[in-house]
């Protein structure tokens, strides 16, 4: 293995690059992980700013800040979705925490393909530049991608305001992000299968590693389909093909099938890593091993498999065959079973434990409750009949933000507070962390809970102005988004405070509940971790007790 160098070469092997060489040419999983995290914070703040602009427009009926430029409104809502999905949650959970902690948790010195890892990150930079550039391409009102993140044809092909190159740039952006994710997924799969420490069998791996392995398979299988779909869209737009053009024998609905074959696994790409994080944090702060380890692995695997066979529940109003819709309704409902297993297992992990309510723990408890809320509205939406009343209304917006903003993003913050002492070597302020939790909790719930009511009353999503009856809830929803925005700024202050005050974290700030391998090395970890290979062969369970 790479660290098994002879004493003669030790000097070279342990050379630590500095400055630009260290960060631009990095092949070190920890440095690349940090790059991903910084990238995610940048893109996340940008995406949050877009969402606050949307809420400002919707705060009152009539035109507020977009002055009637509804194409620009559509560009903002499209950019918000792309940024949050591809440039915040995925880089933070997969590229950031996954890169940093998967090798540490399985006792590996690095990822299997360090140079591939470097490319995975640096492909994302031109990808983001292309996406942002798309907003400036075009003339007059006809600028940017105003199609929503689904980029459905024919809107993305024949619409008068989308004749320019904006959509092409966005397609190239997604190509690059897709290649980045596929390479990263290959890297994770090879790392987990080949680089585990002696004795670290698959069923002794921490659940976060399992979550990342399942996520990697989802990415590997789903993203090529998106790549194909948007390439067909590209040629429809530029080369006169007719894949999705009914006048030429094509079918717009075919694009929707391809998109959602990718799109539904994609939403599990965002949430499954968070499942893994919540398992680690709940076990650590309950000072108990995760309850039902095998059930948890099985549930995550089942969610991953089911994620590939339910895609058309996004298309219940497109006019599918009724029998097809009935199948997708039933298959979608089945997902509630493994999800329920996870929720109950987390609670059972806490049951009988000795709970400490640190910031990561309260974020994790918040996640469990709010994800349950987002999950049960998913059961409602799975009904093809009831979904007719909710499709494309704010009920759907509320549902997926409970799963994403209050689910996946709560997972990101859980992971941040749990692992940042390890990454930086410094403790954050517990008091400030808890203030951040409550600000963010109140802000996001105030933003999204009233949207259930708006959806029930019939308010369509993706509209820049609304009938006056919807004004009341929209006002409070906007207030909520401002509070959540303030919480995000406050989060930056917490990070700065942590680096200014430099409270040393020590190897393991969380006590004997934290039993995974990353807590056995220094904080921050050495540039080359595991000089001495950890030996797991005497360990009998995934979460060995510190008392052993």
């Amino acid at each position, binding site marked *: 293995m790479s660290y098994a160098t002879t004493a003669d070469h030790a000097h070279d092997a342990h050379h630590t690059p500095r400055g630009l060489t260290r960060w631009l040419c990095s092949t070190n999983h920890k440095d690349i992980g940090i790059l991903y995290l910084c990238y995610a914070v940048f893109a996340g703040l940008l995406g949050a700013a877009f969402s606050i602009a949307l809420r400002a427009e919707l705060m009152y009926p009539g035109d507020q800040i977009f002055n009637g430029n509804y194409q620009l409104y559509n560009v903002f809502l499209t950019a918000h979705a792309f940024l949050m999905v591809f440039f915040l949650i995925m880089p933070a959970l997969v590229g950031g925490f996954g890169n940093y902690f998967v090798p540490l948790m399985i006792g590996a010195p690095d990822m299997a393909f360090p140079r591939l890892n470097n490319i995975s990150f640096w492909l994302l930079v031109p990808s983001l530049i292309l996406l942002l550039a798309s907003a400036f391409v075009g003339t007059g009102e006809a600028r940017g991608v105003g199609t929503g993140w689904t980029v459905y044809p024919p809107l993305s092909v024949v619409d008068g305001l989308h004749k320019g190159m904006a959509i092409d740039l966005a397609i190239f952006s997604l190509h690059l992000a897709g290649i980045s994710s596929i390479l990263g997924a290959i890297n994770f799969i090879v790392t987990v299968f080949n680089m585990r420490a002696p004795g670290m069998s698959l069923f002794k791996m921490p659940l976060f590693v399992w979550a990342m392995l399942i996520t990697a398979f989802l990415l590997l299988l789903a993203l090529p389909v998106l790549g194909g779909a948007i390439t067909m869209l590209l040629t429809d737009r530029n080369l006169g093909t007719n894949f999705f053009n009914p006048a030429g024998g094509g079918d717009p609905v075919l694009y929707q099938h391809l998109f959602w074959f990718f799109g539904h696994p994609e939403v599990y790409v965002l949430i499954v890593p968070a499942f893994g994080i919540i398992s680690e944090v709940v076990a650590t702060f309950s000072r108990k091993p995760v309850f039902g380890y095998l059930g948890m692995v099985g549930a995550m695997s089942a969610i991953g498999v089911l994620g590939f066979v339910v895609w058309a529940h996004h298309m219940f109003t497109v006019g599918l065959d009724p029998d097809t819709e009935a199948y997708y309704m*039933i298959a979608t409902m089945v997902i509630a079973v493994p999800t329920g297993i996870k929720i109950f297992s987390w609670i059972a992990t806490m049951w009988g434990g000795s709970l400490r309510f640190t910031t990561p723990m309260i974020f994790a408890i918040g996640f469990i409750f709010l994800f349950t809320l987002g999950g049960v509205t998913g059961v409602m939406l799975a009904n093809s009949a009831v979904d007719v009343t909710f499709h494309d209304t704010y009920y759907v917006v509320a549902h997926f933000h409970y799963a994403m903003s209050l689910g996946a993003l709560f997972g990101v913050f859980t992971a941040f507070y749990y692992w940042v002492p390890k990454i930086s070597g410094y403790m954050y302020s517990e008091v400030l962390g808890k203030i951040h939790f409550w600000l963010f909790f109140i802000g996001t719930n105030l933003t999204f809970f009233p949207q259930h009511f708006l959806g029930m009353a019939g308010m369509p999503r993706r509209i820049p102005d609304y009938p006056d009856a919807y004004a009341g809830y929209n006002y409070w929803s906007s207030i909520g988004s401002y509070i959540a925005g303030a919480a995000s700024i406050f989060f930056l202050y917490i990070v700065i405070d942590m680096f200014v005050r430099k409270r040393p974290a020590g190897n393991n700030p969380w006590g004997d509940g934290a039993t995974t391998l990353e807590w056995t090395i220094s904080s921050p970890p050495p540039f080359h971790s595991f000089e001495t290979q950890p030996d797991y062969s005497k360990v009998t369970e995934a979460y060995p007790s510190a008392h052993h």
Partner: protein
Amino acid sequence: MFKPSLPLRFLAATLLVMAFTAGQPAFAQDANATDAATAVMTDATSTDEKDTTRELSAKEKDNAIAEAETITAYDAQKVRGIAKPWQYTYQPAGSPVMAHLVKLHNGILVVITIITIVVLAMLIYVCVKFRAGRNPNPNRFAHNTMVEIIWTVVPILILIGIGIPSVRAHYQYTNNQDIIDNPDMTLKVVGHQWYWSYEYPEHGIAFDSNIVPEDQLKDGQPRLLTVDNPVVVPVGKVVRVQMTSADVIHDWAMPAFGIKQDTVPGKLSETWFKAEKEGIYYGQCSELCGKFHGFMPIEIHVVSDAMFEAWVAGAKLKYAANDQFQLASLSR
């Protein structure tokens, strides 16, 4: 130390959910459902065309058009299908489909609310009972086969309880092909950027329906919902709606009728409704279709048979210049 009461507690909680599920009327055998569906079909009567063999004088034509316009005039008292401020339920159901969907939704809502409250209660319980200050020495148990079987099987049973009425609603109401194939009348809908065009193939009427700009609204007409030429349909009649689009994908949605159907270019979609009460109903385009997506509303006036016939007579004259076969839907 292992708490033997743990499996019992979970069992009690899950059984509680089951008990509530079983008690919900929406999940009982809905014997009326089939009757309702057949009743809808049996009271169907064919719409008689008005005798238009005699040539009308100019004055008679003007009167007929004026009468048709009176029928589609806005009257705040007649508005039934519209959202109200601070509303937290559906709009009042205006069709048998929506009435059933409301029942189905409410039944599922009770179940998912109970599940959410049970999860919240368990979370609060463990946070209070097992906080470090009160329980300094944690247990080490990590398995309990019986509990795991229970929390796998019970959700499956709950889902079966939800799934059966859902599949039934799917086939008997939203996708009831028997009803769609035996309508009282047909309405064709074509989506355009950014307005709707409508055709009454059995009555020979065709017209475009555009939003009324804010500065031209009269008598308190609702903003963003009012159109110049609303759809008019007779009350209590099964209307088959056939839809397509002339450009991009739109979606013809009418919340009070439980209708939401994409209009896809190159594809003919069908759905149906039977409006049960006279009144004015509003909906909005529900698929992002470009810049003015939020500005192509749907307005339906449900009127009595007699009023509908009067409207047909006037509309034929009013829209006589619109040869239906010239409309974008058919010329493309």
